[in-house]
């Protein structure tokens, strides 16, 4: 319980750090977003609206740094992430709310799949060193050094095109409206296959390599020898004795690398034109839409922190030592 509270405290601190960084970046922005917006919508915005816009974007320079920091927190407390420049006047939170579920679905499925498959392969190749699985190692290191997005490009070239069953872009067929019907869900799944497979293939090898190393280390422990000597079945020693203990570092590694994985997923979305937060981020970069970029950073950070906390819970369940009180 104490450990859980410590972790919770750490995540709260990290969230605070992310929000503060976000705020500070906003205050070093070059130029004046309001005048940029006015130039873009020349003639459409009443000049008397400038003052209210300035206040709206939180650019009131008369406020002290501390004062605007406090009002920034006040805005966040109301779920107000500002207003998007590009899709003026849609609030950033509405935009992110539309795109986020797709990203969560894609990242969630792909990450869990790749962790399970990769760890499984790692268990086998670590247990049987010198068997055919060792041949996977060079291939794995090659795959793990390919950028996600490039693998996505290749996947599109190879697997899609006229006559192919797999679609190469979008998260659902254009023209459908997102509703919970079987046909729509099926369509969405069909669109998710290639992007998810891309992420699985390129992240899997990392889990495999680290799990293999841990298995090799664990295999030479005395308790494994004892388990063999007791005459336990090969399978039982491998899974319940070796893999059970080798798994723990991999789980904490899983939590820590979620941030990297999410970043990689953004690129896959861009390549596949998948309607997720990554695509939204690309549009924001293209249009210098700072409120949108910052909103995305903040929401993604919070999501990663939440996922980390879940991984911590899993670790707590798997490792009895952490449950000791006192």
């Amino acid at each position, binding site marked *: 319980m104490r450990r859980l509270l410590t972790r919770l405290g*750490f*995540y709260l*601190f*990290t969230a605070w*750090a*992310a929000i503060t960084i976000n705020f500070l*970046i906003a205050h*070093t*922005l*070059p130029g004046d977003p309001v005048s940029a917006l006015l130039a873009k919508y020349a003639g459409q915005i009443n000049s008397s609206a400038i003052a209210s816009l300035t206040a709206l974007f939180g650019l009131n320079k008369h406020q002290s740094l501390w004062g605007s920091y406090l009002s920034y927190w006040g805005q966040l407390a109301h779920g107000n992430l500002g207003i998007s420049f590009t899709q003026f006047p849609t609030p950033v939170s509405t935009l992110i709310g539309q795109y986020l579920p797709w990203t969560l679905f894609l990242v969630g499925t792909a990450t869990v799949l790749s962790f399970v498959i990769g760890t499984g392969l790692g268990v086998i190749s670590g247990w*049987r*060193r*010198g*068997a055919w699985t*060792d041949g996977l*190692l*060079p291939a794995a*290191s*090659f795959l*793990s*050094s*390919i*950028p996600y*997005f*490039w*693998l996505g*490009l*290749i996947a599109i*070239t190879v697997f899609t095109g006229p006559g192919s069953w797999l679609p*190469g872009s979008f998260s659902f067929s254009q023209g459908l409206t997102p509703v919970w019907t079987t046909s729509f869900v099926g369509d969405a799944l069909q669109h998710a296959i290639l992007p998810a497979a891309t992420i699985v293939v390129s992240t899997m090898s990392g889990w495999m390599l680290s799990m293999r*190393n841990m298995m*090799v*280390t664990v*295999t*030479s422990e*005395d308790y494994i*020898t004892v388990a*063999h000597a007791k005459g336990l079945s090969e399978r039982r020693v491998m899974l319940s004795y070796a893999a059970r203990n080798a798994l723990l570092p991999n789980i904490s590694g899983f939590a*820590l690398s*979620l*941030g*990297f994985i*999410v*970043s*990689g997923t953004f*690129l896959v979305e*861009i*390549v596949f034109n998948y309607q997720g937060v990554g695509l939204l*981020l*690309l549009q924001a*970069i*293209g249009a*210098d839409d*700072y409120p949108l*970029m910052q909103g995305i*950073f903040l929401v*993604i*950070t919070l999501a*990663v*922190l939440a996922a980390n906390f879940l991984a911590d819970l899993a670790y707590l369940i798997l490792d009895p030592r952490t449950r000791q009180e006192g």
Partner: protein
Amino acid sequence: MRPNRFRLPRFLRNHKAAAGALILLFFLVFAVIGPWIAPYSPDQTGTAIVVGPSSAHWFGTDQLGRDIYSQLLVGTRGVVVVGFLAGAIATVLSMLIGIASGYLPGRGGESLSVLSNVFLVLPALPLLIIITSTQQSNGWVVILVIGLTSWAWNARLMRAQTLSLRRRDYIEAARATGESTSRIIVFEILPNLTALIASGFIGTVVFTVLTEITLAFVGISVSEWNWGTVLYWAQSQDALAQNAWWWFVPAGLAIALLGTGLALLNFGIDEFVNPRLRSSGPARIKTATGRRVRMRIGFTPVTGAPGELVPALAQDPEGETL
């Protein structure tokens, strides 16, 4: 007496390390000579627009008739320079923070450890994108920002290793003889972290290269050529829809090859330091009676008839008879 011939350093006699070093050397050479041997200027437009590989344009041309082979050659320098400089910055930072947080007692060490965990958990790419797109980005800003955001993983490893070293007998002895903290860190701890620092540096370079290429791919700092810039144009000009595979395949292969080379070098270091990881020899050995025995760590199977014992232990892993 052995004939006095040239021998590779022991580390490079590992096949993985040698292959990795060779690949790295290949790219380093191109980073130096790339811009000189490029047949065209990477920005020189031509009349042949989006044509496939030919003798005039080895890797074809892009939407403005620019030569993609030249873009890749010129871009190699950008990739290598940014990757290694940012990697060096990150490695130095991770050494300072990792060792300090492992060695310093109490609050100081703890807070440094929390700092590196914060940087580890924050999703780096959106942060990088925000920072680099808001600042007037030139090459140096990109190098600095990538370096400043990619040190955390190594710092964590160094901290763990330092923590396990600081209570060892020889460190206690050094402390007891009154050596200063800085001397203990530099002369007692640092040498024992060499392998970790080396493999950490290589791993970080892989990461910084990928980050740099990613930033270029999403359209930040496209003014200077690197492999990501080529991919950026390929993506934004719909190379896929035009079936222009020559536009993005060579760039991606170059990235993957460089990454694989560095990863192999790292495997080499790992195996050099930790012999358990070497996968030498087949796992199954046939005994004289025809039975198959599976080699297992912790067991020493006897694999020959009693008279002709050739135990595996009589040879060291480098193949030299002891």
